[in-house]
């Protein structure tokens, strides 16, 4: 084995398509709210932001109140959520942008909807705003993540389970923006490479995976579905082995396409595993709920894990778990 390196010998920076990230870790949409963290931080959170890019909670064209409570609970080595894409709608969302314009990191806007039109409307609204807004009043919105994989919204199967429907959403959004365009895939499929390929062929620049697994938890006493929405999305360490397998499959099927891998990352070693399976960046979701310091801890651990194995950079480890 390669001899270990000193921590300082490891350079964590990665390039995610056109985005230069200081390190591979980003927050997973819906699990990390910049402003709430900033309220609790002693220093300047906008400057010390622990993730390399900020992915806010999914925003939709219309305002949504989300699902009835309860919305979350713990499961063995995981958790389930049925938030239901609660968000203020794109207009109010744009109205709030100036509050966090001081963030110095790139932002990847997570976009949701029920039809290609709805997705495109969000992208268009943002592009329109960006075209006219003063730079100092908006954060660095440098990319989009099309969330075609939320298992918690009503109305038929997920778009992401249908490659053609996925392509239609991507196509509609591609027509509205030249910015970096990610598509967030659902794991609730037989073959994740089908939607992955469809998304890329329709113009996506990269892929994020995985979103949550559709699941159900029962109330211990009544044996009725526990969540207000009956079903929800499972995430956390429980699902990591499935997520790793899917990231590896997509990396193998679509070499060269930038991937944001996620699902159950709670340590630097977990993050490194996603990189070994071909991810360029790694998303952290449920781990944000384990402590405010989780993001910076995971970044520090990733550096240590790379150093211990003699990898001078994430790129040096990328894909080494894949078939030769």
């Amino acid at each position, binding site marked *: 084995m390669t001899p270990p390196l000193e921590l300082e010998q490891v350079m964590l920076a990665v390039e995610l398509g056109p985005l230069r990230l200081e390190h591979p870790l980003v927050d997973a949409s*819906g*699990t*990390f*709210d910049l402003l*709430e*963290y900033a*309220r*609790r*931080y*002693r*220093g300047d959170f906008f400057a*010390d932001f622990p993730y390399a890019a900020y992915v806010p*909670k999914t925003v939709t064209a219309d305002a949504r*109140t*989300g699902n009835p*409570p*309860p*919305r*979350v*609970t*713990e499961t063995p*080595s*995981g*958790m389930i*959520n049925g*938030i239901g894409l*609660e968000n203020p709608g794109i207009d109010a969302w744009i109205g709030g942008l100036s509050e966090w314009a001081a963030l110095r990191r790139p932002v990847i806007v997570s976009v949701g909807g029920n039809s290609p039109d709805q997705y495109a409307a969000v992208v268009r609204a943002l592009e329109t705003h960006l075209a006219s807004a003063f730079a100092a009043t908006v954060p660095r919105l440098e990319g989009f993540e099309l969330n075609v994989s939320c298992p918690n919204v009503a109305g038929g199967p997920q778009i992401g389970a249908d490659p053609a429907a996925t392509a239609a959403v991507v196509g509609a959004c591609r027509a509205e923006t030249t910015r970096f365009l990610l598509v967030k895939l659902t794991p609730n499929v037989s073959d994740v490479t089908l939607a992955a390929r469809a998304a890329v062929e329709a113009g996506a620049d990269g892929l994020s995976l995985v979103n949550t697994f559709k699941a159900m938890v029962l109330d*211990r006493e009544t044996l009725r579905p526990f969540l207000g929405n009956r079903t929800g999305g499972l995430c*956390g*360490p429980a699902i990591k082995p499935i997520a790793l397998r899917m990231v590896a499959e997509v990396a193998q099927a679509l070499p060269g396409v930038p991937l944001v891998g996620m699902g159950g990352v*709670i340590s*630097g*070693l977990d993050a490194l595993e996603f990189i070994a399976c071909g991810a360029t960046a790694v998303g952290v979701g*449920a781990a*944000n*709920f*384990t*402590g*405010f*310091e989780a993001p*910076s*801890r995971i970044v*520090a*651990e990733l550096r*240590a*894990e790379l*150093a*211990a*194995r003699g990898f001078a950079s994430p790129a040096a480890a990328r894909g080494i778990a894949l078939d030769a």
Partner: protein
Amino acid sequence: MTAKAVDDHAHSEQWAETSHCRVSAVRRFGAFTAFELVAPRIAGKAAPGQFVMVTVPGGGFLLRRPLSMFTVHGDRAGLLVEARGAGSERLAGLEVGETVDLAGPLGSAFPTKGVTNALLVGGGIGCAPLQYLADELVTAGANVTAAFGFRDFRAARAAGAFAVERLWVASEDGAVGRRGTVMDVLAELDAPPNTVVYACGPAAMIGAVQRWTLEQGLRGYASLEAHMACGSGSCRGCVVDTTRGKLRVCSEGPVFALDEVRP
């Protein structure tokens, strides 16, 4: 090969509200356990009604558990835990000398300014935040009356953890105090017209207290529970219905005006 242990403290330093705390005292009352923790940063900032997110030790638990501030004495934060599920069972088993991670104080506090007559209404483990509230109100010179209701003799053992001077207890099986619910206690009380009501307990109790308060022409506050993931406003997991729409118990609450909640 494992990466060199990364010092968590290095990363938590900048969080005004996180603390690695030693258990300094434990008292047990049946399924209820009262702890004191050495938590200067949290004890120094807290106000009654706020809560902490507590990491369940042992590694098998992903989410932290929300627990109300039960007491504050100097640099000591007190918590009262009822063993219900696996996580609270593990917490209830903590011994003196163990350490736990807390984040807090979080959430909104009970408003106490200018209150001269206070009526504290608690149900079951919902009584927990009312001890701290009583202590602060008494220090501020208010008249404090408390009415606590418990399900049965098992649950009523929690009463032993409380030190409130004018405390009326009811239990549904008559094991402790008056037989009946806390509403039966309220029915017999004479609340002065400027009384402020503070309620914490099961939804049905909050609803009954809300109606009673309205009938009496009083005003008050309720502290609500909700299942939480982040405990700090990020995930929108803990919303409850209010007259102001869906609000987050962890950040807009847990204390709400009694007339805006919809239990």
